[in-house]
């Protein structure tokens, strides 16, 4: 049962050290993956629209003192419930304050709430999710069951409970919103890490002798970024919505802060008499949330984990 000797494969490379390029010698332009994502995003008209909306509100908030001569808290009872006019673009509320001014200053509050609530949830959620996903076993059990417990409540109910314990203020509303978002990020990161842990390049990193910390920071975290970024953008929108809801219930920003949800709550008695008092903050909330959702959806499409080229 002898096996035929196969012809020995011709040696392609005779001198292994000094060797001419055997592959393409044409320089290929190399762009890091995130640049491709940005390019992809710019092609998406909805995402661009969302981006424009958000930029508009950011500038509205930043430039508020320049855009309007009025103060957002000074009452002028002579000008109560004036309809929109050249002097008061969006009209005035029941205490004679200019609604446009309050919307502009309110943009600051809403965007700050979104930023801080999302960053807080992002940091803690990511850390917990990575630890749970990478180390597994009992650590995972403890963290995941805690997440399940938090997610078992409707999120706004949980936020109300947290504010009820801490006291009603914008800061506490912000903390409450961050807390209810932690398990959202945590679960997302955990599932991503669990699937990444089985990847061969993670085993390769281990085989090279890398420490756990390095594997987590340089290999697992960068590869889990895509869903985190998308979730952060979408989370921005819901955080603003939650803050408005808490404000509406009187559990968030306290008067005279021009918080949009609070503005809605304060003017709901005048819905027939002066509908503009509700329309302006309502549309503002809607637009900001819409803007973030459009960007988030666009990002989800653009950041494809399997990068194309």
């Amino acid at each position, binding site marked *: *049962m*002898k*096996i*035929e000797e*196969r012809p*020995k*494969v011709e*040696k*392609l*490379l005779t001198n*292994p*050290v000094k*060797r001419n*390029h*055997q*592959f393409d*010698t044409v*320089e*290929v332009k*190399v762009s*890091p*993956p995130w640049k491709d994502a940005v390019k992809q995003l710019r092609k998406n008209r909805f995402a661009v629209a969302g981006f424009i909306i958000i930029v508009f509100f950011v500038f509205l908030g930043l430039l508020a003192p320049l855009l309007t001569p009025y103060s957002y808290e000074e009452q002028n009872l002579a000008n109560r419930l004036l309809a929109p006019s050249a002097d008061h673009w969006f009209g005035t509320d029941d205490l004679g304050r200019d609604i446009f001014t309050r919307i502009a200053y309110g943009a600051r509050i809403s965007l700050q709430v979104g930023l801080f609530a999302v960053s807080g949830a992002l940091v803690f959620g990511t850390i917990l999710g990575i630890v749970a996903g990478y180390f597994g076993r009992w650590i995972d059990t403890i963290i995941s069951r805690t997440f399940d417990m938090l997610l078992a409540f409707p999120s706004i109910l949980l936020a109300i409970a947290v504010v009820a314990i801490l006291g009603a203020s914008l800061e506490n509303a912000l903390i409450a919103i961050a807390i209810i978002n932690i398990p959202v990020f945590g679960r997302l990161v955990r599932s991503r890490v669990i699937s990444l842990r089985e*990847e*061969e*390049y993670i*085993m*390769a*990193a*281990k*085989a*090279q*002798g*890398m*420490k756990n910390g*390095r594997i987590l920071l*340089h*290999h697992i975290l*960068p*590869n889990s970024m895509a869903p985190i970024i998308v979730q952060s953008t979408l989370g921005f929108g819901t955080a603003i919505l939650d803050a408005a809801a808490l404000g509406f219930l009187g559990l968030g920003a306290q008067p005279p802060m021009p918080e949009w949800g609070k503005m809605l709550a304060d003017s709901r008695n005048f819905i027939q008499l002066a509908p503009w008092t509700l329309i302006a903050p309502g549309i503002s909330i809607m637009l900001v949330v819409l803007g973030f959702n459009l960007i988030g959806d666009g990002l989800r499409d653009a950041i494809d984990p*399997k*990068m194309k*080229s």
Partner: protein
Amino acid sequence: MQKPLLEVNGLKKYFDIRGGVLGKKVGEVKAVDDVTFTVKEGEILGIVGESGCGKSTTGKSILRLIEPTDGEVKFEGRDITAVTQEEMRKLRRDMQIIFQDPYASLNPRHTIEKVISEPLLIHGMKSVKERKERVRELLEVVGLSDYHASRYPHQFSGGQRQRIGIARALANNPKLIICDEPVSALDVSVQSQILNLMEELRDQFNLTYIFIAHDLSVVKHISDRVGVMYLGRMVELADKDNLYDDPKHPYTRALLSAVPLPDPDVKKERIILKGDVPSPANPPTGCTFHTRCPNVMDICKTARPQFNQIDENHAVACHLYN
């Protein structure tokens, strides 16, 4: 006689099967069951076997990428199954692995520069300039070029990626490289390029390989000695020529008879095995091959055959040769 670089003694890896609500252990898969062999310095030991026979698990258990259940792995006389994780981490610069799938074994978000320089960094090459220099050198050694360093893995072909994987494994001048089916994901023409490259590198850097594959002709081409595995056990281990010219174990004979010959006029007897490979969760008693063996005897069903040296450099686990 060269001194052994690696001694594997009674290596076992059992994976637990868990079931039920509480995740109770209901059984175990004996992926690697009492495998013993040595690898001499500078040689290439081929390991062949069907899918699922435990070749890769053996390779990964030796490196403790999968923690072995039992057994001893001696690298340069030191039992590495007993060392701490931190010591193991340092030992890894001497023991490297090349993976089967060149598409999965490179981090898609790292440039080639980073992929190859990372092992240098973690084993103490702090200077950026030195690392750059070494990466350039390594790329050249594996037949790639300087300018490839700034690219991402998805911009390479399979063969090129495998070259990158080899460069990464070579980075710290290892002594032993476990090649876990390094060419089975590649086209045949590219396979021979990679095999030639690996042979050259062996000579150039005095490397020792454990070459795992399921392609008998690939193993024959590259190995000095060949081990045949079946259902988690080593059934035959011999010098390449001995094994291919005079296989002893009935399983090895059947395997070799299945290798296609390039000449259509040559007729040879093929040994057709009946049935499937039994489940490693419930392996047959005695010799695990007795359910399919053409030479089965009564003793095969009860007693597990010892791995016996029947000749110089030829060992076989079969009752026919006791």
